[in-house]
């Protein structure tokens, strides 16, 4: 736990003024939440200063009025660092992370498809997993989409 706490302290020094919430529920797990505008700066400092280069995946969650994006970074044998922020549903534009972390390319495409998040500057937000005939504007992981309705769309397409 000491090592995890050290990482927390280091993060506080690095991105202190941008932190909305920081918590460490257990050894080797840190959740860091920031404002949307400071996310890129925070990740830049984390990547450059702490040399965290492995992005495990990005989780998108529909919170009702907002969508939360959580970027799960793995930091060697020290910790799994989750950095996240919220965006309002009426403005789902986010700068892509592929220029800083090229491995984000498919995770951003997946989020674009299932939640409708628009990653500005992404090299190609083409469909990845849903069928070609999938109706535009239907984002299956949004809470308003019920499983039964999606099943109907799927069997039609």
């Amino acid at each position: 736990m000491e090592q995890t706490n050290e990482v927390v302290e280091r993060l506080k020094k690095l991105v202190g003024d941008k932190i909305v919430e920081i918590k460490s529920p257990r050894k080797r797990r840190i959740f860091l939440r920031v404002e949307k505008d400071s996310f890129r700066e925070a990740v830049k400092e984390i990547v450059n200063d702490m040399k965290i280069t492995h992005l495990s995946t990005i989780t998108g969650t529909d919170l009702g009025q907002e969508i939360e994006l959580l970027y799960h970074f793995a930091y060697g044998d020290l910790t799994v660092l989750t950095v996240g922020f919220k965006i309002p549903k009426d403005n789902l534009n986010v700068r892509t992370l592929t220029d800083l972390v090229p491995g984000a390319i498919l995770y951003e495409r997946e989020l674009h498809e299932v939640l409708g998040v628009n990653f500005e500057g992404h090299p190609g937000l083409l469909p990845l997993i849903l069928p070609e005939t999938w109706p535009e504007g239907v984002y299956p992981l949004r809470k308003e989409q019920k499983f039964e309705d999606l099943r109907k769309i799927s069997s039609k397409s």
Partner: protein
Amino acid sequence: MGFASTIKVPFGPQHPALKEPENFIFEVDGDTVVNVTPRIGYAHRGMEKAFEIRTYIQNVYLAERVCGICSHAHTTCYVQAVEELLGVEAPPRAKYIRTIIAELERLHSHSLWVGIAAHEVGFDTLFMYAWRDRELVMGLLEEISGNRVHYAMNTIGGVRRDLTPELVAKTKSCMDAFETKSKHYLRIMQTEPTFEKRAAGVGILKTKDAVELCAVGPTLRGSGIKNDVRADDPYAAYDEMPFNVISHEGCDVLCRTLTRCEEMLESINIVRYALDHMPSGELRAKVPAAVPAGEAVSRVEAPRGELIHYARSNGSTKPERYKIRSPTLANIPALCKTLIGCHIADIPIILAGIDPCFSCMDRMVFVDAKANNQWIWTMQELRNSKK
């Protein structure tokens, strides 16, 4: 010659390398691949959405069915996430049993892969031998759990079945037999010139690219990075297991092969150590049906690499959000990079080189991408059909 002279060659969706659907469009200039576009989703079943409408205990069985090879890796990852949310820890014996099953699963998965790799380079004799010997482990898993693939060993708070003294003895003798076979395969992969000619220097994934594109598992370790969740972020009983993280510097298909073959020998030793040091005691802790609000990130080293699950609970008996990222998806960007510049004839072995598992990768959001697949049964229809 420039791009104007290139032609597009579709690979798949019918088994581009493995017997699973996946589509790649290769842009080729003569015999050389200059660009590749993957299209996944052909085995898409909408599992993340399905997690949200089922209870935590039902979801154990859903997680089991994400994959037909690494089913135990998915349930381990799932139950760990839920246990963390509940604040419950599995008893020590359960953790050892989870570790043993996980390594047996790695053994049968890697030996399946050895067979496929041999097949892709036209070495079908080795393919037959590898798959014949894989049955040793499959049979053992069936004796332990009652099932060859979906072992259903994990449950929230522990495991569902014990390893009796007879099963321990059987497992040990199976490991002895399997060790002889694995050493034989390793020797073939190291020395057989026909394999070396098809694998050495083929499908180069530079260390820098592997790191930048966030590759995982044997694909990453074959490019010289010693990165393994079992060692870096120990779960189950791995913090008590002595083992080496295998890596090779060659960055080619041969090194990915050697990494897997040597990992099989490590797995055998982990199983032996765990059997010898298994503590006695309870198999599972009692857990409530409702899970307090919170969030957890769970990681497991599946046979193909880092598997990560994220769970968010809202205090009810069903998760608010459940996210799965399987190792194959993580390796696709690195795979595409590797394929550029290769010869058409090397495509199958390079594709197979990451040990792709498409049903793991495609499970994410929705029912099925196949247009003619409209006979999806509801739970009620399934129940009625039994009568």
